């Protein structure tokens, strides 16, 4: 068979993981990885946590260095944007007008931070946090910041708030349009645990409010809220979500619906074009309905599925969704189904802040949320896959060993 030309647009975690998986699956194919950022591929979770807090080095987030990629014959074009996909000729057009031919194309373009369109948003010391460069610039700003205002009480905003308190001792005020933290993505138990933790660590919240404008002489000085309240601020972080980077896909005529639409194999509406990571609205057999997820897990694993499909090994994406966040030295995780209609049982461990809430669907464990009890999350993953014979009373009892209740031999069908 002739050598296959694989082109990957997007040099983040999903693009890199796909390149590595492609190289495993096809020793001879030509693999080209194109990334708009100039850094080698890296993981983003630590940018708002360890790296910002100073407990992890910036280099520690790099997945593979350029020489390591070169050794695997993965060709990289970093700091280079793709302008267009020419579907008819199967080529991508780079920002310097060069054209690269592909047999199979993967779009792993990720997301961009959502911005605020209010006056003064371009003043100095107003940040968003998406890239490693964003993280380094924010770190620099926070060195001399006394008053930090975070816009948005989602995961990124809260992680930044926690890191800024812990490392820099900033006074932190979080402004949020909704009536509480994590309104978009979390069950009540998690929301209240996180909110309490932040308050006890001195973070101030202003709910049901938003930014009407920023004021200052070149450099930020005040944040004016919709309510009329005026906050003095040395630094602002806008954490109001992301927008999937679908522009290339749209211009190429691919099906897009808040994310590039792909099936369980990572295939788009165009036969030789695939998409991976958080830019996708993908099918996950475990969930059924197509979903777009901003998570490490999707970047890591759905990208491998797409890469395998590109190399001809079609295997459906079927994974129990899992998510973590670390704030003020506490670890919170979510796995599986945690919807509001499910029965909930909470087990509280003695001592430090440590608990697990189990979500039951007709007596069966369908998901969980943990506070510093990550081992339970792993057991719930097993319980969802294999089954667990356990009563709600036993689930609630921290002395009951969960592992001994797992179904030993999975049902075969």
């Amino acid at each position, binding site marked *: 068979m002739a050598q296959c030309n694989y082109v990957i647009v997007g040099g983040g975690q999903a693009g890199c993981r796909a390149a590595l998986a492609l190289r495993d699956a096809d020793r001879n194919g030509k693999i080209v990885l194109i990334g708009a950022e100039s850094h080698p591929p890296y993981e983003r979770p630590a940018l708002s946590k360890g790296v910002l807090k100073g407990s992890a080095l910036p280099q520690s987030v790099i997945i593979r260095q350029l020489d390591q990629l070169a050794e695997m014959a993965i060709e990289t074009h970093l700091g280079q944007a793709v302008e267009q996909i020419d579907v008819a000729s199967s080529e991508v057009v780079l920002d310097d007008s060069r054209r690269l031919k592909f047999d199979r194309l993967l779009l792993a373009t990720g997301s961009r931070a959502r911005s605020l369109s209010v006056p003064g948003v371009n003043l100095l010391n107003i940040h968003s946090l998406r890239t490693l460069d964003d993280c380094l610039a924010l770190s620099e700003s926070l060195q001399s910041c006394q008053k930090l205002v975070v816009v948005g009480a989602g995961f990124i905003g809260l992680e930044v708030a926690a890191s800024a308190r812990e490392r820099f001792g900033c006074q932190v005020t979080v402004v949020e349009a909704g009536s509480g933290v994590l309104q978009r993505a979390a069950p009540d138990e998690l929301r209240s645990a996180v909110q309490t933790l932040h308050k006890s660590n001195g973070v101030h919240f202003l709910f049901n409010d938003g930014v009407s404008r920023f004021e200052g002489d070149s450099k930020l000085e005040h944040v004016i809220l919709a309510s009329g309240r005026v906050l003095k601020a040395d630094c602002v972080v806008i954490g109001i979500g992301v927008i999937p980077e679908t522009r290339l896909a749209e211009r190429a005529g691919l099906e897009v619906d808040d994310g590039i639409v792909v099936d369980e194999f990572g295939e788009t509406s165009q036969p030789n074009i695939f998409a991976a990571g958080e830019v996708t609205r993908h099918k996950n057999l475990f969930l059924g309905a197509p979903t777009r997820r901003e998570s*490490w897990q999707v970047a890591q694993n759905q990208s491998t599925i797409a890469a395998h499909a590109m190399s001809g090994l079609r295997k459906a994406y079927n994974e129990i969704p899992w998510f973590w966040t670390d704030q003020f030295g506490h670890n919170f995780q979510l796995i599986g189904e945690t919807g509001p209609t499910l029965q909930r049982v909470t087990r509280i461990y003695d001592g430090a802040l440590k608990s697990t809430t189990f979500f039951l669907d007709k007596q069966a464990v369908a998901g969980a949320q943990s506070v510093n009890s*990550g*081992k339970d999350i792993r057991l719930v993953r097993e319980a969802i896959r294999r089954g667990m014979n356990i009563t709600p009373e036993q689930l609630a009892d921290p002395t009951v060993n969960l592992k001994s209740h797992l179904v030993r031999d999975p049902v075969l069908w």
Partner: protein
Amino acid sequence: MADENWEEVAKVGDIDDEEAIRVEVDGKPVALYFVEGTYYATDDICTHEHASLSEGYIDGTTVECPLHQGVFCLKTGKALQAPVEKDVAVLPVKVVDSKIYIQYLS
């Protein structure tokens, strides 16, 4: 390695099967595991971020970190599943007269 620097850390029966405890060896935290009649020991702190592997999930001769689900081999310390990339140190274990000893590098 000379046969020295063995520190008594626990007794047989202290750990249930497929469980782990955190012990101290030479003043450092070490995870001591018991799987199908064999004891294993590794550094307790994950090579990825600050988490205690003795609170992890043991599956055969692997342990999964409770923080971010990285997986290590208990026999070799090898990092088997992302996000961990760096191997964890393993320490020799021996049982003498129902006492469990772990050896550290001086």
